[in-house]
């Protein structure tokens, strides 16, 4: 008889396991308790012993694949008869993902869940769901019986509800479990917020050119409008004396060139920003609107907003807190090149937790940057130029630079933004202090 071995929860609440290596293949004889497969969960890597003696009839998940807990991992024919594989066995290529890792957006948009359209006329009499899930469904206006359940016993989970909402209830396929295609700006590619006003029509006067709003321009339009309409922006500007850092960079530049890095000021600013974020974690956060939770991120992926041939692009320096100045310089250089040549990968363009906007030589004096939603803050870097400054009662020429920070006042207050920027200023003005914080 065919015995279905369901993927067990081997670590108190794990949802899936990655197949590291099978110790047996289809057709092999196995003994009771013989180790048959090595499985890695987010808690431990373990060997699973066979719960039956018999013949391996069918392996549903191959090396490297992810098997959700509760799915049939392997069918063991335990009396030597031909295995009867029940139709309920899901094809290995498209496992239902009960929980997809929530990507950076931190909002409902991220959770990619395979959705099936449920015929409304065939809705079930009573959907199984926990009270918390029902409440969430009510909040989001999702009808539970339209949601494809992935939980135990056909139970609808909160992820199912969110996934259904973010897919607008329409069929969406995500065999690779990936998030929807990201906007090049790195902003959340979420549904457009409801428009409160009737669309404005611009009457034609003849002396005009009409360009369709689409592609990247349209994405930028949507992202920026969403950010401005959602986040309660306030902007704060501070002047930073970069004179010391200008000297440091001058001294380090040739050494950096020898080691294959083009040393700009940006790596230093990234470093100072990361130090500040560690101290002021409310600025490295996002609001999960579905659960009303502030998600404080313990990783520091710094977005660098810059103009590309196709428009504004945010490239992402991942794990900036674990990179040296030289490493940051090389990575920023690589990302810039990738954006210019159109070879940037998804990882290069998504997942930032805080963004630095730099116009380089066009840096200007101050700006009111728009937050790269759903992040909490963005910093605008302005031009470094020699300006008069008063030092010890004397007017001296110093290399001064302004930083403009915009913060979402919903999640952080003026105090937080100001203290953060003061910390960044202190680090940049005295590079010695910055070196103390380096890894």
């Amino acid at each position: 008889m065919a015995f279905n071995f369901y993927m067990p929860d081997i670590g108190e609440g794990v949802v899936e396991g990655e197949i590291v290596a099978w110790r047996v293949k289809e057709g092999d004889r196995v003994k009771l308790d013989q180790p048959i497969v090595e499985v890695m969960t987010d808690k431990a890597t373990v060997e699973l012993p066979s719960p039956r003696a018999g013949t391996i009839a069918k392996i549903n998940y191959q090396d490297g694949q992810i098997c959700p807990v509760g799915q049939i991992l392997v069918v063991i024919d335990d009396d030597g008869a031909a295995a009867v594989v029940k139709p309920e066995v899901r094809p290995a290529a498209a496992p239902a993902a009960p929980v997809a890792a929530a990507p950076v957006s931190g909002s409902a948009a991220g959770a990619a869940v395979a959705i099936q359209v449920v015929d409304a006329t065939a809705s079930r009499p009573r959907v199984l769901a926990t009270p918390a899930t029902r409440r969430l469904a009510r909040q989001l206006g999702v009808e539970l019986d339209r949601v494809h359940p992935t939980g135990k016993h056909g139970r609808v989970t909160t992820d199912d509800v969110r996934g259904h909402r973010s897919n607008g209830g329409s069929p969406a396929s995500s065999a690779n479990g990936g998030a929807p295609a990201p906007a090049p700006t790195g902003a959340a590619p979420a549904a457009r917020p409801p428009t409160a006003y009737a669309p404005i029509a611009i009457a034609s006067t003849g002396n005009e050119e009409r360009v369709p709003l689409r592609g990247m321009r349209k994405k930028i339009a949507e992202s920026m409008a969403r950010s401005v309409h959602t986040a309660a922006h306030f902007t704060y500007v501070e002047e930073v004396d970069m004179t010391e850092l200008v000297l440091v960079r001058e001294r380090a530049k040739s050494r950096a060139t020898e080691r294959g890095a083009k040393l700009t000021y940006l790596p230093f600013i990234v470093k100072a920003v990361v130090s500040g974020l560690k101290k002021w974690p409310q600025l490295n956060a996002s609001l999960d609107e579905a659960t009303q939770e502030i998600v404080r991120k313990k990783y520091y992926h710094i977005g660098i907003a810059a103009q590309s041939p196709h428009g504004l692009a945010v490239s992402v320096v991942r794990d900036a807190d674990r990179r040296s100045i030289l490493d940051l310089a090389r990575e920023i250089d690589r990302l810039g090149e990738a954006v210019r040549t159109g070879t940037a990968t998804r990882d290069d363009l998504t997942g930032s937790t805080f963004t630095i906007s730099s116009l380089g030589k066009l840096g200007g004096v101050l700006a009111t940057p728009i937050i790269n939603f759903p992040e909490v803050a963005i910093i605008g870097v302005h031009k470094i130029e020699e300006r008069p400054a008063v030092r010890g009662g004397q007017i001296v020429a110093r290399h001064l630079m302004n930083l403009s920070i915009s913060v979402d006042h919903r999640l952080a207050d003026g105090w937080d933004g100001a203290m953060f920027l003061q910390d960044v200023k202190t680090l940049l003005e005295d590079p010695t202090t910055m070196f103390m914080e380096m890894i």
Partner: protein
Amino acid sequence: MAHVASAGSMNDGVEAYFSGDDDAKAYGLFQLLREDGTPVDDAGLDWLDRALARRLFHGMLRIRVTDARMMALQRQGRIGFYGEATGQEAAVVGSAAASAPHDWIVPALREAGVGLFRGMTLDSYLAQIFGNAQDPSKGRQMPCHPCDQAHHYVVMSSCVSTQIPHAVGIAMAMKITGHRGEVCFGFMGDGGTSAVDFHVALNFAGVMKAPCVLICQNNQWAISTPGSAQTASTSIAVKGRAYGLESLRADGNDVLAVYRAVRYAAEKARRGDGPTFVELLTYRVSAHSSSDDPSRYRDESVTEIWKGERDPIRRFESFLSGRGWLAAGERDTIAHELDAEVRDAIARQERVAPPALETLIDDVYERPTWLLREQLAELAAQPRTRSPHKH
């Protein structure tokens, strides 16, 4: 390993060692068997007979065999969780053997073997792990939280060190209600001694002269925290002295040393001469639990030493063989019998249904309120699906 109590310091036998120097007791390591299983000089093992020795051995092997079987079941998805005591069998069984039937046991995570040694049945132990209808706690505790009222074995708390005040409190109650020679055994791990309840409990024990034996199984790992990060104290035993408790440190992988040290402490408490704090030095050779993977945070080559030459069962097996109390190949025979017992009990318990739905509202109110009864009726009217995990 630290200083081993030498023959000289116990010239008048083991009792002399216990009545001797406090520093030696708290910082040294009381040992009766060397790692190769030969007795230390002047071990004074006159009190040991073949029957007791074989009971100890049997109890230790039972833990090892049961743990191996239960871990396999966990990996097959048949139980939700398991915490092994493998490698710590001497500390568990040596302590259990020093207890009397009318004593009480307040365990930490790895003392289920104490319950089994005192008479808790394998079926009861397994029923709790399966959380089935025969589980005394009606499926409400996570696996590995057994209890057995008949054998005075209290259910453990998952919280670190909260059970130590319970143990001391029980001992204080024994004294307040008229001490009749009972002793309360309170267990903890090394991590527990860093938690606040440990200090509260030891303080009360000392001040109230509570008839308890507080035993720390120092297995050197509190999940992923090594002993070096746990405390700056030279030994764990010495912490007891701050509260006026006589404190002993013994080799937790030497079942005879454990038995002797704990029996000394228990007899003292029985006489009404107050509490003792005992540190049993051992090593957690397995993972913290079935959810843990120690290869991620520690050097497993050290573990191999504890699994090998320092293994408590191997040490005692050598001793028994040397005495002619264990025939060649007998270990395998006993292990085989124990394995068959465990498999039979699993087969029985796996068939037992889950606790009845109605038990959900038991044991909170003497008579459940109308609200609970109404909720239960609603729940009972809901459709039921069979778990896909049932085999």
